[in-house]
Structure formats: structure tokens, C-alpha cells
């Protein structure tokens, strides 16, 4: 897989660390959460089959977190628009 980093250009996936689906966000107010909802946040991930937006950490490159669209069926990648990138 060759991932396009908006800061560094096309780089091999070995430079990146997978950071999870962007929809799997920490709840705004954990204290108000039920046990079941807390369990879902900790242990359940969207596990999408197909296209999903994901965080990737360019740890062996510019060290920034970026958002990448990946198809989990065949690992095809799509570039994101700039405003969706973090950092």
C-alpha cells in the first residue's frame, strides 16, 4: 500500500501506523455514559467492510496524524481533501 501524505507525498505503508476509524471518537461526556455505551466505545470498532475514513500516523515521516480513505476489501486508497486533514 502506498499512502499519500499531504505533507510528504507518496510513502510506503511501513512508515505509517494505523490509528483507527475516524467515527470511533471518544465520547464527549464519559461520566454520563451507560456501561453498555462505555463498553461499545472501548471494545467495539465500526469494522467497516468497504470504504472508511481512518486516522493514520506518519510516525516514520513527518510525525503528523492524517486522515486517509481506505477500502478494507482490497486496500485501495483515495486522497482526502485538505480541510479533512489534521495537523
Amino acid at each position, binding site marked *: *500500500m502506498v499512502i499519500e501524505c499531504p505533507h510528504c507525498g507518496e510513502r510506503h*505503508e511501513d512508515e505509517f*501506523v494505523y490509528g483507527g476509524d475516524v467515527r470511533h471518537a471518544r465520547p464527549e461526556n464519559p461520566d454520563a455514559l451507560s456501561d453498555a455505551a462505555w463498553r461499545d466505545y472501548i471494545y467495539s470498532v465500526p469494522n467497516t467492510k468497504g470504504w472508511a475514513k481512518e486516522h493514520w500516523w506518519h510516525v516514520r515521516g513527518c510525525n503528523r496524524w492524517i486522515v486517509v480513505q481506505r477500502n478494507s476489501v482490497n486496500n485501495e486508497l483515495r486522497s482526502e481533501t485538505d480541510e479533512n486533514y489534521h495537523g
Partner: protein
Amino acid sequence: MKYSALNLAWQGVRNHRGWRRAWRHATPKKAYDAIIIGGGGHGLGAAYYLAKKHGITNVAVLEKGWLGGGNTARNTMTIRDNFIYPDNARFHHAAVKSWHTLSSELNFNMMISKRGMTTVLMSDRDLSDAQRMINTTALFGAEHRIIDIEELQQRLPMAVSPARLPIVGGVYHPDVVMARHDAVAWGYARAASNLGVDIIENCEVTDIIRDAKGVTGVETSLGNILTRKLGMAVAGHGKHVAAMAGVELPIETVPLQAMVSTPVKPFLDNIVVLRGFNTYFMQSDKGELVMGSGTDPYPSYSQRGAPQIPEATIAAILQVFPSLERMQFMRQWAGILDLTYDNSPIISKTEVDGFYIDVAGSGGFKTTPLAAMMHADLIANDRPDPLIEAYSLERFSTGRLILERASYGNR
């Protein structure tokens, strides 16, 4: 038709024209007492034990593709017993034993080959970890022992000398066996079919139908089928099938890769594990080297896997066995594992009445007969056997996880 030497000779005389299909071709009935989703080893086994042990013979197994075409076909056939935590150690020790009588029970040759497993240790930390594993697993009956460098070299004569690598010794685990993976699916299918179970291939479950009391049936590509008891033994897509019943499973789907070389003359009887490299390999009965890696570093449904993983596996094997440098690849593939956060299976009831699951085996080939037996018992009696109480779905709410390190997906 019983398979025996006598029958083989008799069929030989008749030019092998008398063999019959191993299992009946079935078309779905309107309703069943129980339905199992998934025609791999676990699902077919569950159907067999429902019929054999619990007298529930009005059962169907629904398989999206062909029998044993999922992870039953994609594993590396290794049956080991080196799990550390009490619940896992107890379960896996019983699971290894459940293979011993399977061939005679099903009248189908599982081609059990007792190999033993040798783990190469390369640091003092490996050694103390191994000692801890040996002590804890011994409490549940598993047999391992530390071997010195001399014995290690005897068992693995082609490994490099410890002068080149910091090899400190090894662990020998004599109980490890290999079994023919296809035979597991075919043997269970034939035995279940003989007891009246309908095995329905090319039948995809598209939805699970419920009422206020629980499961009432399934929607499939071959029409609706009614049932009050539904078991799920699905690998790779467990989360999606369970979601049809409204059950949220804490599962992530990750490829686990393996590869096979061209066949060569026998030189290796043991299964070799290289600790710290996430790598193991063995020579199959056909002479091929079967090599296995750790899980891919990100979730995916791609049955190819990331290319840098086999590269690292081969590099590790060549460090310890440089003489294998000219071996040639035949094929490489990935099995799609459903992994739980604690790398332990879920064999459990769910919050939906009549919906039972046996998923996330994390390399569940080794537990096939026992997990299937326990799943059938769960479906028949609607309560877990003490052996699988720890594998409940509830453990993710209560926090009673089994953080196993002997599984593939170490996280």
C-alpha cells in the same frame, strides 16, 4: 456407507463405481428446530453434535459458499496447547484431547500427525517467559519442557549454530498434532448428514428475523426459513451477521497470513516456532514448508494481506535456517480473523433469545471439535457449560477479560 479397508478392497474390485456422495444434497425446508450459520468445521461440528449428543436432528447448516471454504481452508492445521490463562488453558487442553478420537468417531481419516513443537528461545527474557508458561499450563495438564542448546540442535539439525545467533535454548511441546483441515469439514458434514442434518451450500443469510420473544428465522438467498434456535459459527464476518440480529460484537477483522513452498524431501518433523519473530513453520506430510506469520498491522478484509509481513517472516526463518535460502514459494494467502480485544473466543448466548454465537476463535481451527461440542450444548440447553462460561459476551461489560498472549493477535 462405512469407510473401511474391507470396503476399499470391495470397491476396488468393482472399479470404484460404488462410492456414494459423502453428504446428501439438501434443499431448505420451511422450518427447522435449529439452524447453524456457517459451514466450516465449527458450524458443521455444532450441527453434528446437536444430532448426535442432543437428539436434535431437524437441523440445517447454511453456508454462503462451499463447505470448509473459509478459514477451515486457510489455517495452518496446527493444534497446540500453550495458553497461559486458566480459562484458556483448561479449554485448550480439553480441545487438544478432543481431536484424539475424532477419526474413529466420524469414520473419516483426519490424518492426525503427532509432530511436537519446538520453540527457539533467543534471550533470557524468552527463557523466563517460557518457564512461566510451562509452570502455569502444567497445572491444567499440558506438557512442555525446556531443552538445552544441544537437544535443540538435535531436534532442528539445520538451524544455525548458537555462535551466530543469541540462542539460549528451546521449549519442547510434545502434544502438538497436525490434522487435515478439509477432512474436518467433510467428516463432520458426512456424519451430520447421515444423522439427518440438512447441509445447504450456496445459501447466504441476508437477514435474521426476530419477534419480541427472540429469533424466529432467517432470510436467505433461497427464501425464508423458520427456526427458534439459531447458532452462528462465522469467521471474518461475525460482526456483520450478528448485527442482523441487532447484536453488537466487539470484533475487529484482521488478516493472518500463511504461505507454502514447493515440496521437498522430509527434513523436519517438528513444528518450529521462532519467538520474537511472530513466525512458525513446519513441513507438511506432502513435503511443503508451511510458514505462518503474525497478524497484519491494520484491519482488512483483503484475503491477500500486506506484503511486508511475509517478507519479515521469510527473513526471520532464513536467519535461523539459512540453508532454506533456495526454497521456492508456491502460494501465499491470508485468512480473515475476527479478533476480540482480549484475543479469546466468544462462545456465548446473546441478549437476543435463541441466538447463540461461536466466533473469534483467534486461530480457532485447533479448538474445532470442542468449541462445536460446547456450541451445540449451549444451543440445546440454553446455558453455558462451565468450560465456556468465561467466553461469554458479557465479559466485555463486566471487564473480566482473558488477556491471552498465546493467540495470534497480540495487541
